[in-house]
């Protein structure tokens, strides 16, 4: 069974590129355009990994991360934060809130795949 991955980002073109990349590698891909949608989709679809953008409408990535970690049912969901803000404080904030990994935009597609695989334990 292929692993399910949710991409949560409001930048259309970034979503397109990551979606293409992950599908090509054989993952099942879901997409959310804002924080609230992302949270809802995690609850209903139970993806294995969430790629979470920080700057999103309605609910930012940090809040989504916090909400996910507060839900014991979702403990197995891996979270990889993706953000264009590369400051150290933001990285530690994300990890502090329970994210499993952190990548700064722009990222290398190979590294992104490697990170996703590592989180999935493949």
């Amino acid at each position, binding site marked *: 069974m292929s692993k399910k991955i949710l991409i949560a980002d*409001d930048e259309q*073109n970034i979503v397109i*590129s990551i979606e293409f*990349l992950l599908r090509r590698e054989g993952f099942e891909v879901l997409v959310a355009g*804002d924080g609230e949608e992302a949270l809802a989709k995690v609850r209903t679809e139970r993806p294995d990994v969430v790629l979470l953008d920080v700057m999103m409408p*309605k609910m930012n990535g940090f809040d989504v991360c916090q909400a996910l970690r507060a839900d014991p049912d979702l403990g197995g969901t891996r979270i990889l934060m993706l953000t*264009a*803000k590369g400051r150290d404080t933001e990285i530690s904030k994300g990890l502090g809130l329970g994210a499993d990994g952190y990548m700064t935009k722009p990222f*290398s*597609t190979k590294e992104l795949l490697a990170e996703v695989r590592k989180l999935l334990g493949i």
Partner: protein
Amino acid sequence: MLEAPVVICLSLAYLGVLFAVAWWGDKRADAGRSIIASPTIYALSMAVYCTTWTFYGSVGRAAVSGIGFLPIYLGPTLVMALGGFLLLKMIRIVKANRITSIADFISSRYGKSHLLGGLVTIIAVVGIIPYISLQLKAVTSSVSLLLSYPDIVMPDHSTTMSLAEDVSLYVALILAAFTIVFGTRHLDATERHEGMVAAIALESAVKLVAFLSVGIFVTYFVFNGFGDIFEHAESDAGLQRLMTAIPSGGGYTNWLSLMILSALAVLFLPRQFQVAVVENVNETHVKRAAWLFPLYLLLINVFVLPIAFGGLLHFADQGVDADTFVLTLPMSQRHEGLTLLVFIGGLSAGTGMVIVETIALSTMVCNDLIMPILLRYKALGFEDGRDLSFVLLGIRRGAIVVILLLGYLYFRLAGEAYALVAIGLISFSAVAQFAPAMIGGMYWRGGTRGGALAGLGAGFIVWTYTLLLPSFAKSGWLPDDFLTHGLFGVELLRPQQLFGLTGFDEISHCLFWSLLANIGAYTGFSLLRPPMAAEAAQASVFVDALKGIGPVGAAFWRGRAQVSDLQGLVGRFLGPARAKTLFSAYAKRRGHADGVISEADAQLVQFAESLLAGAIGSASARVMVASVAKEEPLSIDEVMHILDEASQLRTYSRELERKSRELTAATLELQEANERLQELDRVKDDIMSSVTHELRTPLTSIRAFSELLRDDPKMHLADRERFLGLIVSEAERLSRLINQTLDLAKIESGRADWNSGELDLSEVIEQSVAATSELFREKGTFVELDLPEGMPPILADRDRLIQVLLNLLSNAAKFLTPNEGRVRVSLRRVPGALEVSVADNGPGIRPEHQEVIFEKFRQVGDTMTAKPSGTGLGLPISRRIIEHLGGRLWVESVPGEGATFRFTLPLAVVEEENPLPEPIPAWGG
């Protein structure tokens, strides 16, 4: 009820009360809780100025010369109101140098000269003794008047003299005892008498109450108010002459000279110097006294004229002396209580003056006359180290008795020879001789001992010749030939028309010639030679007294001394136990915790000298200290050098103060600047963070697509083309972002180029709408225009304006619902400007976001499913452009009903303002 025993008992009881107050005051002072530390007490104590001469004599003078009594009180009022600085400076000098009397002050100023101190003392004693006898006389005659009650019998030689002699002798002796107890309780390093001051303040209050009471009684009970008395007086031929402002000949000159005389007296009379300067506990009290004391003088003068007129009307041709009206008017009305109150008031006025004056004079006689003589002839035997404090106290007590007995003697001799007022003025004229040496000494560095001696001597001689001797002659003690024919028959030397000067009264005449001689000799002799070392040193201590740091006495001393010698010396005058306490307190102040000081440096020598100065006067203290210390005299050059250094130090310290103020201000400014910088730094950080975020976002897409294309050469052609297209558009977004960031930075920093010219706004709008028509066509709509004809031109940069319009139009296009959108651009005239509006019927903007959208990188996207495209810089740039052009850009919106962006631009030519047209309705309104 007014029999002798009653009067005597009452008088003694009153003195007993004073005694108790004084005793209590001293006790409290010893306990460190002063009862006189109040400006009101200070002002009341200054009212010792008002003696029986005021209490009884003002009415007498008013009965002769109308308001001629007034200048005696106007002078002090002016001095207190305008001359506070003079008093303040004297207080500072006295405190800093432990000066004990006016003789000590002058002697100290001119190089601690014994000769000068002695001369001042002699002038003071000779000048003041008649004044003291005047008090004895007034008190005595009030007693004898009282004893003849209910008859009013003028005291004269034949009937009451024997009694009067006894009374005045007793009065003198009682006062001497009182003065001795409170004036010379112990020798003090500051020569202050708190108990005495408290008693004097009480006396001032009592005499004021008494005088006001009799004034009110005469005005409102004997007569029917001021108006009544003055009406009566006006209808009386004899009184009419008193009603003119300046009645007698020589008018204004005499007034002026009386004012000058009394102004000098209130500062330099020994008793005034004592209460106002030596006894001052806090120099801020001077401020309150500056109006309280004149107020006191005003109050005590309010009823003088009514009483004088009342007395003249009441006792017309009965031979009652006007000097007694204050007492005889209540007596004539059989008002015993008031009569006794007035008597006590007069007693207060007399005793107050005598006590303070005698203390001041006895200090001067002891320190400046007798001590120097004893020192010179080594009569004190100070080689054998005896405790001399009792000797000193003995001298002072003896001086008090002698002075009062001299007063009594003068009273016996002069008797009825001269009116009260004249004697007072003779004393005033004598102390006026101190003025040049005092004032010159405080403000002129060039004054010398020789000058002061010459001035005082010349003034004193002229005073004696023109005023004292004629008064003797008028009393019949001297042949009065020289009065009418001049000394040795020389007409020019007639003492009261000296060198043919006429038209003045005798007081003005004396004041003129004596002060002329005094000032002339003082300045003339001072200019003869430059000040010597000791004079220059003291001149600087006095003249610079108010300047904060100046050279203190210690700066002018060089030599060697033993601590034990100094302490022993002080002990001999103040008592060994007291000296020990003072020295160990000094040691503790200097940082020797054990109270033991081992080395006698210049400061300790100075300290010992100032302690001695408080007890025996500065000149004698100088001599005594020199006797135990091995001194090396300073040359005038060295003194000048010290003074130069001191003045440099002063300049330097002022410079330092200024610099320190500037530094404080600079630090504050720096702090503010730093805070601003930090704020700017935070803003810059935020902007940098936003900019990098905005840059990274398109870069992320570009990199991802590029890598996908690179890694998959066999990608479908359609995907390949789609990805390449996205790469290109993201790259365009990136360059747009960079351009706009730079553009905004340029506008904000003021480095943007502006090509302003007169523009037809309609034409610019049409051009912009044409450029964006494709955007609207894609959304299935077009832009409606409402551009009235004949709008005046505006002054603006065409390209920038088009940039704003394109931004607003493309924003409108971005949020339009396809095929349902409507956009309308309107132009209208507002006062002094044109207003453009761009209205759409898109989703609108929530009120809380209507300002946020004008901030950098603040796209408001959370109401929509997707983030709006664009850089987030369009509106901030547009607003800055419009503001630069002198207009305003804002948005009005109801969410769900669309948004209307409006901006104004000022007209190129300011015209008359037209009435405001109806506002253009926004869409959906």
